């Protein structure tokens, strides 16, 4: 795995101002982990950037979203914990 600078944990809907604020601070070595309502970013017309994107499978399922063809890697809570340790920094939006 490449260097992971900042892991951005994003739990807001794409309509929430903090969703856009988060996208505006992504660096090339960053990754986004979508949680809670943040997973709706994968079906909205608001484009997620080209950084590596993960999404909590539990939250995808609750919102009726398939784990396939969404442009994000589905993860469980254990993988989210791992990502927070792999990253040099974590920001929760």
């Amino acid at each position: 795995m490449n260097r992971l600078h900042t892991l951005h944990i994003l739990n807001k809907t794409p309509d929430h101002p903090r969703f856009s604020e988060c996208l505006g601070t992504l660096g090339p070595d960053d990754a986004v982990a979508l949680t809670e309502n943040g997973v709706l970013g994968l079906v909205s017309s608001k484009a997620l950037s080209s950084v590596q994107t993960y999404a909590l499978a539990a939250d995808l399922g609750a919102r009726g979203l398939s784990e396939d063809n969404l442009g994000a890697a589905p993860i469980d809570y254990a993988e989210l914990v791992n990502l927070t340790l792999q990253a040099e920094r974590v920001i929760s939006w």
Partner: protein
Amino acid sequence: MGMLIIIDQPPYGTWAGREALDMAFALAAFDQPVSLLFSGAGVNWLRKAQDTAGIEQKSVEKNLAAAPIFGIKAILADRAACERYNLDIKTMIDGAQLTDANAELMAQYSQAAFAG
């Protein structure tokens, strides 16, 4: 006429939508005319096949399915919001009607309210 209860937040992330639904059920229980409008990110309430096993919350799909039985007049969904969230009549639960959330729609109701 009657009351329009508006839900503009998705389910599970916050409780505002659940509490809006309780308001609608209470009005219906007292024979007050009431409809639901899902707007903004709230249209995600209407997506089929919600599986909440992973987050230990009850699915809201059953609550919504019960709405007509309990006397809620209509389940409306803002067309533009549905498009933004990639929802169409096939991927939405049965009984939802597409509409445009604009001044003309609002004028059809004597009151409109959010739960929070």
